């Protein structure tokens, strides 16, 4: 069975996200900060008449909040009835793969191993398969 994956760049590294979880990819022109919210929340942005929460993917990995460049791409996902935009450096391509993901190696640095779910080989390259559920609400997994 072939699955579709979206290749995106987070903190300079290419990662993949299952295309079935992706609602759309949009360019974020501007965002409104959410004061005193968790540091990985880059803000709110409007997509047509909806308000989406912008998640700073880079923060999980580098611990540095991102500076939004107008027009920067965000991957829109719908998790638990809420829409989020995962702010990434770039969105590269959609690829097909029928290779099953392999478990994460244990020696990944903390940030990467939190957002990653598995490793995936596509066309002789290995990508980290990221977990949007974790990124939109890290507290849930910690509680579990």
């Amino acid at each position: 069975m072939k699955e579709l994956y979206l290749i995106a760049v987070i903190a300079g590294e290419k990662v993949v996200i299952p295309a079935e979880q992706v609602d759309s990819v949009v360019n974020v022109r501007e965002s409104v900060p959410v004061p005193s919210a968790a540091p990985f929340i880059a803000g709110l942005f409007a997509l047509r008449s909806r308000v989406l929460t912008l998640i700073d993917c880079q923060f999980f990995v580098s611990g540095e909040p991102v500076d939004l460049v107008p027009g920067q791409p965000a991957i829109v996902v719908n998790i638990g009835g809420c829409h989020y935009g995962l702010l990434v450096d770039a969105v590269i391509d959609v690829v097909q793969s029928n290779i099953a993901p392999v478990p994460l190696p244990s020696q990944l640095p903390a940030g990467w191993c939190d957002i990653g779910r598995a490793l995936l080989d596509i066309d002789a390259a290995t990508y980290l398969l990221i977990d949007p559920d974790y990124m939109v609400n890290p507290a849930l997994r910690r509680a579990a």
Partner: protein
Amino acid sequence: MDDLIQEFIAETRETLDALASELVLWEQDPHDSARLDSIFRFVHTVKGSCGFLNLPRFERLSHAAEDVLAQVRDGKREASAHLVDAVLGIIDRIGELIVVMESGEALADGSDADLIAALHRSPTPEQAATAQAAPPANDTGPAARRQAAIRSIRVPLVLIDHLMNGVSDMVLARNEVARCLRDDQNGPVLENAFDRLSSCIADMRDAIGQTRMQRIDRIFSPLPRLVRDLCADLGKQVDLRTSGSSVELDREMIEMIRDPLTHIIRNSIDHGIETPAARSLAGKPATGRLSISARQSGNQILIEIADDGRGIDTDKLVARAQAAKVRTATEIVALSERARLELIFAPGLSTADHVTAISGRGVGMDVVRSNIERIGGSIDLENNPGRGLRVVLRVPLTLTIIPCLTVRAGGQDFAMPRSAIREILFDNNDQVRIQQVGGRDLAYIRGECLPYVALETLLGLERTANPVARHRTVITVNASSELRYALAVEAVIDHEELVVRPGAPVIMADGLYAGTTLPDNGRPMLLLDPLGLANRAQLNEFTRAVDDPSSEHPDAGEADGGSALLFREAAGMLRLMTLAAVERVEDVDAARLAMAGGQVRLSIDGESRPVFGLDQPPQTGHAKLLHLSDGKRHVLYAVDDVIDIVRLPARVEPASEPGLVGGIALLGDQQIEVIDPHWVFSYLVGPAPSSERPACCLIGTDDPWTRNILAPLVLAAGYRPIFGAPRDGQQDEAAVSIIVGDGAETPMLLRGEVIRLRDNLSGGPQDADTIYRYDRAALLGRLINGRKGAQGT
């Protein structure tokens, strides 16, 4: 009222449709208790709604059916086929009457005695047959009338949501087009067309909003009538207060909470609030209080129904539960107080001694709970036996249009629900005084003391360096019925009606925000939660102080001792001082304190004020001083540290002898001395400040002697020296005039005491009325006399 009836009709029809299959199944197996319960609930609900809509025919029918069904439920009657038939007959009749009402015609005041009688008849086959054979006397031709009914259709919510999103998108698209149009110069034709389109879209947005949203007022407005009727029936007096009726709620939710709310109010009046006689015996005012309030808190709407009746008797409840075999004896022993209280929600249980037409069959609360939980809400009880019951319904906020105030803080815009806002003032307003007391900022607004926080501080934002508005705006917020505070923002921008949706869980988890909204400018905005902000600012301690249970009673004001400042004396002991007397707390530099005239005094605001509690000015560092004020005079009270603001108990044991300590208050089990501010003032305050003193005119030569030698003496004697003769219009002011120098003329129109000073010791007999300028005793004597005279007038 008409729309309420329409709803009653729609709802009853719907339930009837849903019940049809249940009825058939029950007919087949009359012993099926689950079916019995649902039919029972139906008649109970009908009874409830129609009592409230004043439909006596429905009420008689449903009450009769309910009676019989209750007996079956309690096992007092067998659910015979005859009984089932009779109940079904009643339900059918209700259905027929509904059809008549739906056609818009008045209900004939027909008799349903036949059906009701059938319920109570012993089951002999022929009688049952007659009962069944009785045709619905005056309700013929229902099908033909159905045409006239107001037509309505049911639409799935998803579709409406989709429509709403579509309209919102349209509004944004329109705004963008508007921007483009402004940039290019276009002909008036295009602009007119665009304006038309704009107004169409605005209309549509309103309409679509109304399909979903409704003010809670819709269920509040019929309540006074309901309460009045109930009171009349039961011989009780109840004062109903509602608040928050402008809160908007999803229409779906409004429908779902109407019945639960009615049930709770019925219970409150029937079982909670006592008869006037019983209330006077219990030492309560004869008129009971029932307050119903709605407010938005976080992503929930809270509806609070509080009465000051007898509360729930849990022991009785437990006994009933045991008797009704809802719980076994061993289970009951293991129950916590909370769980015992929750027994009220068990089906078929009630603490009422008598079943009345109003309530008391124990169906109320289990139906209430299941209805509320079905829409994702919850119900909480707060029971104060003997003092009242507070029921809090929490209903989720799916999406609402909330009238909001948009405010700016730290360069960012936020929305705040207008329902929570009491007042908006500028901080340079005379009515507002902001200062630090005990390490906490307080705002005194027209004498009321409120905790004061800046929104930027709460949200961790930087204040804008050069705000456009010169003055900051202070908003007084009612976060809840007991919690008020003053919130400072950079500016208030606008009033807007905003469509609010819940935000992502990570944002809502903070409690600071109640949702997100998208105003017309297309920039998302956060809706602040006033209660969440208060929690963030840790104002809850203030709440607790005010949230004294006794404050629910109207006469609590006198019973309460008010707020007091708890502080540590330099000697180490804790003492209390009424907060009203404390104006502020200040750390002053030791250099400003000095020993003068046997007192430690502080130089402040160009005055020297006495300091109490210091024998010696400290050599270095700072001294913490309480500024006490009686409105005019100021004294300072040196303390080691300020600890807290506490609520004084109603009873303060007076001290045995008058002195610094006016009484002893019990805080917890600690005995703490309460300072008597009056004593402090009387001990410290010498002469009144200069503006309060009677004036004394020094007339004659304005020489150094008058200025430097005479004036201080006059001042020490309690006068305010004025140099020169009184000018017109000032004459009344001078209580005493001193004319200095032999050559000075006596001006006309001098009021009060006139003292003439002569330059030399020896004087002629014509100078009997004069005093030698260094005759201190005589001069002071005259001055003191003059003051007595001045006070006398």
